[in-house]
């Protein structure tokens, strides 16, 4: 009677380890990820000097400007540059100097373009267009703080250009978070309501700022206008997940998939959501679709198999592995070992014990240090009362740091099953020495000691 109670104690402890593993796996399930397109910006094409409003050319430059305009119209930018470089910068009006900077920019001579733009601004700091161009120059050079400074200067000096507002918003989002971006994106959208990049940016900013209602309202409007835009559906899925509305999230991702989205992460998230909602058949279709589409990723496969096992979908898990059988030879030996370990677990579940044993052996032949296979095979052997093999497997697993705790506790349980209390005590002492976080062990060791004392009294 006493012995049974002790055994129960240890069993509960071991179960707690298994439970912890499952909890981690479960928490992975809730970690849903959807891949969205990143907010973007588009650089406008070089548009020449004559569209500017803020700077005028000097009267004596009119003739030259007309000639240069003709050259520019013919795409002879280098010729124009040659002529402008014949002047000292101070001899050129800020307008002509701006043209020179713009040509450097369009010819990708960024250092010269930056220097020349700055020279213009040192003479006329309020030139909105120059701030805008310089901001764009810094933006493509990924000097975001400088870019942001010049876009904000452009706005401070009265720019009402959607591009400037949108780019400032993009940089604010990048540098200072969502709240600082919302107003600028709204301003850009007010000026260019149909521009996708502002819509997308505002949506992201609103979502990141957790202003879900506003984001949802904007999204609903956009979806109504563009029902075939899968990105919008994905955005809606993200919002739904953030608002913990999993049904809507799933419906939205499914819509995106229907519209042709086959991004791995999104297929995976859809499968996860289906599993959570017990629509297993669809989950399996999505998992298969994902696995067929991508190069075989064992981490991903492992994750899927763990989900299916948690849902006790052994048959489906087996089907998944059967479908991958063709790819096994192309796997590395380590991957093959993982594959056979899963096959063994499923065979065991299906009570095909000989098959399971063969699969475990194959898994360990492929990779003798596959900790999962060692532990699973050891427990399998304990269940089959093949204690010698089990002990051997636990010993092998014990040297793997990631599996040492499980191996020591498994071995202790094995000795208790065999009523080898002294050996069990010694293993538990070793386990507690290595893993002091196993705070329940001292009490159990105490009980085992008292059993040993009782046994020795009985035998003497």
């Amino acid at each position, binding site marked *: 009677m006493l012995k049974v109670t002790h055994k129960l104690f240890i069993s509960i402890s071991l179960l707690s380890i298994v439970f912890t593993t499952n909890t981690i796996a479960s928490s992975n399930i809730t970690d849903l990820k959807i891949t969205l397109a990143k907010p973007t910006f588009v650089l406008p094409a070089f548009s020449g000097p004559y569209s500017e409003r803020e700077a005028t050319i*000097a009267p004596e430059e009119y003739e030259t400007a007309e000639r240069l305009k003709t050259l520019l119209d013919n795409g002879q930018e280098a010729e124009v540059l040659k002529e402008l470089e014949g002047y*000292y910068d*101070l001899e050129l*009006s*800020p307008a002509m100097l701006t043209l020179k900077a713009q040509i450097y920019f369009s010819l990708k001579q960024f250092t010269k373009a930056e220097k020349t733009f700055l020279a213009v601004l*040192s*003479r*006329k700091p309020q030139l909105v267009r120059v701030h805008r161009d310089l901001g764009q120059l810094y933006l493509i050079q990924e000097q975001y703080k400088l870019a942001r400074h010049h876009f904000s200067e452009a706005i401070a000096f009265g720019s009402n250009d959607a591009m400037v507002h949108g780019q400032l918003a993009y940089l604010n989002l990048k540098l200072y978070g969502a709240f600082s971006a919302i107003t600028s994106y709204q301003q850009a959208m007010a000026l260019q309501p149909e521009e996708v990049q502002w819509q997308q940016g505002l949506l992201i900013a609103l979502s990141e700022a957790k202003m879900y209602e506003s984001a949802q309202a904007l999204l609903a409007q956009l979806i109504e206008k563009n029902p075939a835009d899968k990105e919008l559906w994905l955005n809606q899925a993200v919002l739904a997940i953030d608002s913990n509305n999993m049904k809507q999230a799933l419906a939205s991702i499914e819509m995106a998939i229907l519209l042709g989205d086959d991004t791995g992460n999104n297929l995976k998230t859809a499968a996860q959501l289906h599993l959570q909602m017990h629509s297993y058949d669809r989950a399996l279709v999505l998992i298969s679709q994902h696995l067929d589409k991508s190069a075989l990723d064992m981490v991903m496969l492992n994750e899927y198999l763990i989900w299916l096992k948690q849902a006790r979908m052994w048959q489906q898990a087996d089907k998944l592995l059967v479908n991958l059988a063709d790819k096994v030879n192309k796997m590395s030996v380590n991957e093959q070992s993982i594959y056979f370990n899963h096959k063994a677990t499923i065979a065991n579940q299906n009570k095909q014990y000989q098959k399971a044993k063969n699969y475990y052996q194959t898994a360990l032949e492929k990779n003798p240090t596959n900790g999962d296979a060692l532990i699973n095979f050891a427990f399998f052997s304990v269940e089959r009362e093949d204690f010698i093999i089990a002990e051997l497997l636990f010993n092998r697993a014990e040297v793997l740091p990631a599996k040492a705790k499980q191996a020591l506790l498994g071995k202790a349980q094995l000795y208790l099953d065999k009523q080898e209390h002294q050996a069990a005590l010694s293993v538990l002492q070793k386990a507690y020495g290595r893993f002091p976080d196993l705070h329940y062990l001292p009490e159990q060791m105490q009980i085992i000691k008292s059993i040993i004392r009782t046994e020795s009294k009985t035998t003497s």
Partner: protein
Amino acid sequence: MKKTIVAIIAALSLSACQSTTETTQTTIDCTNDWNTVGYEVALSGKSVRTFNRYEEQCQSALTETAKSNYLDGYTKGIVEYCTYEKGFDRAESGLPDNQICPFELRKEFERGYIAGGRALVEKKDQVRKQAELADARQAQKSGGLK
């Protein structure tokens, strides 16, 4: 009387010509502080292209940073130079508009230059009237003696 007027105007004009000739013939120390040189060139109302002559004179003796230092100094100097007062002084001295002010700084300088030009005309007019008066007195004196 005409001789007196011509002599005064010639004297006014000659002072301007002399100063121009003086500056253009200056030789330069190629190891100069080019920032200061630029600054002084601008303040003296000379063109930014003055540096071309320094380049010709110094050639390889010029350091890599000479030109940019010169331009930095010149840029600073030209902002101080291109004012109403300098324009006024230049015109009042009878010097031609040197047209060295950058477009955005030109307005005030030109306003001063026009005002200075008017002042010069008035000055010349005054001188002419004084000369005429002196001539008239001289003629009166000579007639009385007769």
